[in-house]
């Protein structure tokens, strides 16, 4: 926290709670960045897998289940891949929405806190 120059504005419990809330949102926002990165990678991998599948002309595909690669007919693999892609896309959507909502709430809190404390408080990313 930036140490101000002996500001007059007193910190109330409500201010403290707003600061705490901002901190929580900030943490969650960083976590979401990591989760979104992983979700994007997963979406890409599934996309690549789908493309490979189209190109391959084998009937039996080795599909990873757990730690092993099970032999599965191509059709079944295609179906599974489709539903995995759908799930992954939905998950990415959800994460992005959560991130947007959190950023909006953080902006609200910034307005309130900067409003009261001006430059006695620093809420930016270092």
């Amino acid at each position: 926290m930036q140490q101000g120059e002996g500001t007059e504005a007193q910190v109330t419990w409500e201010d403290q709670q707003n600061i705490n809330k901002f901190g929580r949102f900030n943490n969650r926002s960083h976590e979401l960045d990591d989760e979104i990165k992983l979700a994007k990678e997963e979406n890409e991998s599934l996309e690549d897998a789908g493309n490979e599948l189209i190109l391959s002309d084998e009937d039996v595909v080795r599909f990873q289940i757990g730690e092993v690669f099970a032999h599965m007919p191509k059709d079944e693999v295609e179906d599974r891949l489709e539903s995995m892609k759908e799930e992954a896309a939905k998950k990415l959507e959800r994460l992005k929405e959560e991130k947007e909502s959190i950023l909006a709430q953080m902006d609200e809190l910034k307005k309130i806190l900067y409003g009261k404390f001006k430059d006695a408080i620093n809420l930016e990313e270092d």
Partner: protein
Amino acid sequence: MAAAASSSSSSSSTSAAEERRGIPAAAFVEDVETYLRQSGLDVSASLSLLQERLQQYKIVEMKLLAQQRDLQAKIPDIHKCLDIVAALQSKNGSGEPLLTDYEVSEGIYSRARIEQTDSVCLWLGANVMLEYSSQEADALLKKNLENAKASLQVLVADLQFLRDQETITQVTIARVYNWDVHQRRMKEAIKES
């Protein structure tokens, strides 16, 4: 801990929890001057005490983060087990064995032919493996998954509470410091006039 001594200061509107699962709450200071007078500490002693509290919180945070990482690794593992059990079960009606390629050692794979079976063995840890019917295994794994998810939720809430206490402590440190700077400025101003 001063948490008990200054619980009177948190008598405003929504009073926070005094502690959570062994983590003491950081007392919120309504007024710095009153706080310093009541605690009988001078500014530097007070700042040292608060810094020490902050360090203690950080230590607990490290521990909780490690637990969180373990749980977060455990959950996908349980999902993998559930997937395999489901795959075995679905092969049961078909009359065909399940063929899989598995890793014997790094970079070396072999093929396994798994005949239809109604049972699986689950690794329970501590060099113990037990045989279960596929259904029982499924139920057990699902229960473990639920427990892991529930534990993770509690842990995340603990971390949030802990970080709040860290923030409160950091803000208090800043306020005590600022108050001190303010006091010195005023004294200087009086001297010069």
